[in-house]
């Protein structure tokens, strides 16, 4: 049998960590990972952040990012051990035989140069085609990837095209040198669901038509199931399970894989709306200062005490702006907000301390939502002190009580945010909001920066807290799976308008309007062949197309 295109044997990757105040120590990031990839096949690497999937992906170019070293094992491309190649050998390999598609195309493109120059750069640098040939090839790729006006697309600058288009241009960049292996590192993670589906379909077609082999790295099992032939599940730098896509999705052997497959299986009984709304927005229209363009148009929504209203939409739909209007950070130009039976002042300065206390907010990025120089105790304790005047032992007791509520415990009280994991940080933010004993918490994309299993834990916690404290949530998200898991009612937003609003069972039942249909059908499902089905049946094309 001929050698496989890529053969990785017993890979070991290490890095040096510099914990503050301690001597540097070597840590192992990846250990004992082996796999093989044949020509024209796609292998999906899946795992949570820190699982080592990007590190393994980059090792196929013998590259270690930021002080990471490949210390053991073999990486063979076409039978050659590339770890033994010198600098010039690697230079010939990278960008020619093996190419790379990064997660954030917006950050990976040079904003000062035209797309065509950048797409053909590697091809020309490696002498793999003449300038004219490379450009013809690029145009053909733009066409294949479904980019608008493929002939002239390359003349634009990166900021003149949308995020989804740029991600496809990046794929063209990787395919232009006619490589044998492409590494896709979370190529659709930063995109909206409705855009993701187009990019995904484009990548899948391109891989099939060019016959290139690919490593597809992602944390989303449903996405990887659409494009790959085989899947390798990773956890903490170790291989958990490795097998054909069909087997991993339909008959996972390991507990961890089963957990990943069954994630978001929270069952939530929908509560019926009462007649005593805690929050009511009527005819809210808003625009940002100095602009002539309404970001929100005539928004009417209501939320009952102890219930959850999910506000869904893609980026730019105005859902976070709605949160800013409700919190008073952006006074609306028309309309009003009624909260707990009283009319809220439209700007922050006019609100009473009681208004502020009863309306709390949890942010998407827990990292920046907490002062890095305050301990967990200070962060959670401050609202207690500020609103209720608790001090000393009383405050300490309440903080510990709250830490227990978020399932963390008193041991964390003296830690700084940087010493917590992503999920723990978000829990501390939840505790800070709860400390104020609010009636309503606005949750702005609180789980979208977290790994699926961790996000699951946060959603379960929020649901339990809702039962115990009878707090209402205004839940802003772009993720429909989250909405299914926790919402009682749903408002679908598109271009600053609420296009569909009602209880969960009403909104999620046909007949759908075109946008809701697009949104619903774009959520990747954990089944093979889903992508083809959706592309064939949908009514409306996404904005990124």
């Amino acid at each position, binding site marked *: 049998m001929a050698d496989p295109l890529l053969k990785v044997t017993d890979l070991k990757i290490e890095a040096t960590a*510099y914990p*503050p*105040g301690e001597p540097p120590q070597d840590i192992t990031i990846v250990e004992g990972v082996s796999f093989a990839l044949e020509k024209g096949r796609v292998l999906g690497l899946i795992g949570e952040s820190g699982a080592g999937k990007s590190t393994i992906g980059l090792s196929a170019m013998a590259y270690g990012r930021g002080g990471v070293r490949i210390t053991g094992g073999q990486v063979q491309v076409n039978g050659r051990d590339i770890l033994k190649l010198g600098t010039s050998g690697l230079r010939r390999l990278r960008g020619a035989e093996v190419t790379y598609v990064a997660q954030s195309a917006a950050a990976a493109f040079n904003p000062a140069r035209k797309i065509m120059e950048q797409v053909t750069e590697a091809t020309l640098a490696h002498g793999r085609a003449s300038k004219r040939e490379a450009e013809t090839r690029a145009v053909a790729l733009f066409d294949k990837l479904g980019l608008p006006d493929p002939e002239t697309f390359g003349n634009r600058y990166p900021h003149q095209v949308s995020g989804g288009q740029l991600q496809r241009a990046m794929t063209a960049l990787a395919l232009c040198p006619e490589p044998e292996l492409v590494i896709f590192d979370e190529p659709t993670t930063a995109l909206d669901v409705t855009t993701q589906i187009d990019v995904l379909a484009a990548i899948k077609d391109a891989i099939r038509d060019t016959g290139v082999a690919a490593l597809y790295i992602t944390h989303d099992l449903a996405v990887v199931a659409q494009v790959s032939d085989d899947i390798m599940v990773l956890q903490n730098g170790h291989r958990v399970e490795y097998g054909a896509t069909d087997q991993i999705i339909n008959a996972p052997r390991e507990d961890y894989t089963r957990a990943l497959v069954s994630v978001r299986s929270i069952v939530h009984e929908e509560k019926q709306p009462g007649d005593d709304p805690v929050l009511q927005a009527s005819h809210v229209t808003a625009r940002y200062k100095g602009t002539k363009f309404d970001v929100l148009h005539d928004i009417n929504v209501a939320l009952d005490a102890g219930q959850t209203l999910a506000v869904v939409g893609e980026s730019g739909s105005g859902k976070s702006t709605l949160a800013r209007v409700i*919190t*008073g*950070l952006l006074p609306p130009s028309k309309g009003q907000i009624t909260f707990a039976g009283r009319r809220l002042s439209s700007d*922050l300065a006019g*609100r009473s*301390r009681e208004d*502020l*206390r009863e309306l*709390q*907010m949890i*942010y998407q*990025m827990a990292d*920046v*939502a*907490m*002062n*890095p*120089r*305050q301990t967990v105790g200070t962060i959670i304790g*401050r*609202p207690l002190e*500020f609103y209720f005047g608790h001090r000393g032992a009383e405050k300490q007791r309440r903080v510990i009580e709250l830490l227990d509520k978020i399932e963390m415990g008193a041991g964390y009280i003296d830690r*700084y*945010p*940087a*010493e917590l994991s992503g999920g723990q940080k978000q829990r501390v933010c939840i505790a*800070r909001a709860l400390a*104020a004993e609010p009636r309503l918490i606005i949750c702005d994309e609180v789980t979208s920066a977290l790994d699926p299993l961790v996000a699951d834990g946060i959603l379960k916690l929020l649901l339990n807290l809702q039962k115990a404290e009878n707090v209402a949530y205004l839940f802003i998200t772009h993720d429909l799976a989250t909405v299914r898991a926790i919402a009682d009612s749903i408002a679908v937003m598109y271009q600053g308008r609420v296009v569909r609003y009602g209880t969960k069972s009403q909104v999620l039942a046909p007949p759908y309007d075109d946008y809701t249909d697009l949104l619903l059908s774009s959520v990747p499902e954990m089944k093979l062949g889903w992508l083809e089905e959706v592309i064939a049946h949908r009514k409306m094309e996404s904005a990124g197309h």
Partner: protein
Amino acid sequence: MRGIPISALIGLAFTAAYFLAAIFAPLIAPYGLSEIVGDVWEPSSSRHLLGTDSIGRDLLTRMIYGGRTTIFIATMATLLSFVTGSVLGFLAAVLGGWMDQVMSRLIDLLMSIPTLIFALVVLSVMPVTIPVLIAVMGLLDSTRVYRLARAVAVDINVMDFVEAARLRGEGRGWVIFREILPNALSPLVAEMGLRFIFAVLFVSTLSFLGLGVQPPAADWGGIVKENKDGIVYGIPAALVPAFAIATLAISVNLVADWVLNRTTSLKGGRGG
């Protein structure tokens, strides 16, 4: 004391030595400040370790007392500039809008006049006493600190945790001193090391020009002025204070660098 890099140790040792010599000057100095103990510009000997100055006073004694004056004035001026500069800078960042514009444009106006000329004009009409000197130097320098503090605070002011504090209903005092200040400290401390050295140079320059510390009191700039004619005859007395200024500058900056590294890596900081 584990984990202090060697450069910081050297810096700490020299800085400490200079400050201790300044504090305990009357105990250490071998002679009186304006006591004439020998011939003009005697070379160094066991009686006069650094020789004598232009009118026969012991140079080591002059250096120790001079360091006391120079370091005291520079320290006080730096502290004054940091307190006013950073409080005003933070306030401008937090207030924003037209208040920020007014404050920043006024500061620009002050900065557009060369500091030395401004100081010379003010000092020529005011009585030159040490408090006046400190006030003039401190306030002029605070414009630079204001710029830095405002730039840093504007960045921090838009972070979610500051917004969270605002939504909680916190007042400006809390936002400035509890949310912004701890996160702005490391660039400010680094700048402080640099500013302290500029203050040393500034007070020395003023004294050299005759508008700083007045004789018979000694300071490093004044010692250079008194002994500058000796350079023509190959007498190194004027170079001794220059050497002192240089070593103090380097060692303070070594310490500031270390503090900067420590505070940024401390518990993660803001993105390292």
